């Protein structure tokens, strides 16, 4: 009962957000610069939330998320530009191929832990980038021209589905299994949880949504190049999750929104942007290693009154 109520609240709030922003865009109150920023924000939130599933919920420290973003971007670009299929098919194909890539990367590497996993995922992301750099079919280093197809509606629908699926995954039996792996993998294993299965499943699901975000990103700019998907992009996504709080989906969303705004304003000063990013990263880790929100959610603020926290 309670759960379905919060679902309806979420649905109404998101419909309202969508309607208001769409109205403001149509009437021209939000100009092109800002509507572009809002679409970028939606893409970044999707990336943050999908990495949150891997790092925040399952506790697997992956720093190669840009690799799956690249897979999604290139696959979707091939589907629309080379095969001439509709955008919807491209988004779906991007997600599926990225999830397959996630499986392919996840099955061998998720046996590793901590630092080694981080380096292995970074290595895989680099390999993915170098592979695209060497395929002439997708333009090699020069990149690939893509039509602009991403609209606010597409971005919003994808974002909505991403958040819905990941929140429901987290609150399900699978999500609790994943959280138990984060807390203590050996103990979770001893309790009969198939840790490999859940780790790979969370990784593939995260990769799926990163691929979808890649499709949106590819069709938001006019060109995609392998250099857009280097490890700096992975670190960008990592910063959203870390700053927001490892294990807090609302924290990731807030951090993604906030940092997208900052980076839009600092677009002309990329060095300053990176210095601010890195300082924020170091200071947050030194003084508040759990991130801004810790593992708390913004909805917890409203729950406390009833004192009903057992469904967390």
């Amino acid at each position, binding site marked *: 009962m309670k759960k379905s109520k919060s679902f309806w609240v979420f649905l109404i709030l998101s419909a309202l957000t969508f309607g208001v922003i769409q109205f403001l865009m149509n009437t021209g109150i939000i100009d092109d610069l800002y509507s572009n920023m809002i679409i970028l924000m939606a893409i970044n939130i999707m990336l943050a939330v999908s990495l949150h599933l891997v790092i925040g919920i399952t506790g697997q420290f992956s720093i190669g998320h840009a690799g799956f973003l690249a897979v999604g971007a290139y696959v979707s670009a091939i589907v629309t530009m080379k095969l001439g299929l509709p955008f919807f098919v491209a988004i779906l194909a991007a997600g599926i191929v990225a999830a397959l890539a996630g499986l392919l990367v996840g099955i061998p590497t998720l046996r*590793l832990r*901590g630092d080694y996993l981080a*380096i292995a995922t970074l290595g895989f992301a680099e390999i993915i980038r*170098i592979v695209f750099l060497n395929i002439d079919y997708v333009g090699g280093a020069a990149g690939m021209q893509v039509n602009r197809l991403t609209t606010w509606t597409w971005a919003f629908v994808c974002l909505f589905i991403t958040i819905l699926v990941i929140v429901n995954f987290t609150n399900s039996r699978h999500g609790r299994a994943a959280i138990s792996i984060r807390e203590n993998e050996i103990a979770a294993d001893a309790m009969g949880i198939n840790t490999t299965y859940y780790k790979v499943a969370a990784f593939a699901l995260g990769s799926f949504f990163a691929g979808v975000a890649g499709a949106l990103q590819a069709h938001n700019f006019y060109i995609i190049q392998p250099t857009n998907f280097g490890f700096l992009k992975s670190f960008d996504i*990592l910063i959203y999750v870390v700053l927001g709080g490892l294990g807090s989906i609302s924290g990731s969303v807030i951090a993604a929104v906030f940092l997208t705004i900052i980076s839009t304003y600092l677009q002309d000063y990329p060095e300053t942007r990176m*210095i601010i990013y890195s300082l924020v990263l*170091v200071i947050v880790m030194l003084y508040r290693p759990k991130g801004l929100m810790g593992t708390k959610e913004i909805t917890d603020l409203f729950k406390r009154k009833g004192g009903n926290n057992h469904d967390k």
Partner: protein
Amino acid sequence: MEWLQQLVNGISLGSIYALIALGYTMVYGIIKLINFAHGDVFMVGAFIGFYAITGWGLGFFPALIISMVACALFGVLIERIAYKRLRNATRIAALITAIGVSLLIEYGVIYIRGAQLETYPSVLPTKTFDVFGAQISSKSLLILGVSVGLMLILQFIVHKTKTGKAMRAVSHDMDAARLMGINVDRTISATFAIGSALAGAAGVIFGAYYTKIEPLMGVIPGLKAFVAAVLGGIGIIPGAMVGGLLLGVVETIVSAMGYSLWRDAAAFIILILILIFKPAGIFGKNTKEKV
């Protein structure tokens, strides 16, 4: 005799990787931290050497020593400011801090002096020797000589001096070492100083050999040096040397076979294969995991 020449090229490249990998492996051995900023210390070393040569008109060896001293201080500074508070933090927090420090150094240098390339002046004699039909430049030989010399000095420090003994003790068991009266903080700082000095030396050598330096040059060699450290068995000093040399040779072979664009991928493929099949590295022993 093409292959002999490629082998020499590979060993020269590998000795640079080995020098960087030594710093990684020493720091990892002692505080279990992948010091992502290590590749950037390498970059800073290259720039200090560059300014010492062009600004003060010094030769190769004085510049090398100045760069090593400056990098040692820089490494200790990084450790004292950023990593010291993280001794008891989670591994993820430490790793993220290291990434943050690395980005801060890279973009700090870009902010101060811009992102443009710099060309190293030629400070090394350029003679070529004809050995069994292969053209071997005096540059490669000198670089190899300097690297081997530094590694021998490192071996001496680690095995024959009191600081080295303390380093080995702390990396074996930090708490027990502290109980035995070893100043753990100072030992860790010494490790950072030695590792960073080697990275600084590698920076100057890289500049003198490959001539082009820029603020983001440390990223890829840093990652590859880490691959070399893992390849040899992380935390094991001879492992880092062998791993570095092996990686340099493999990369040169891949390039020589005409796949130069795949060179960077080769390193990461080696990394992943090693992590999957023998995560302890060539020289490592397998350890059982305990609760």
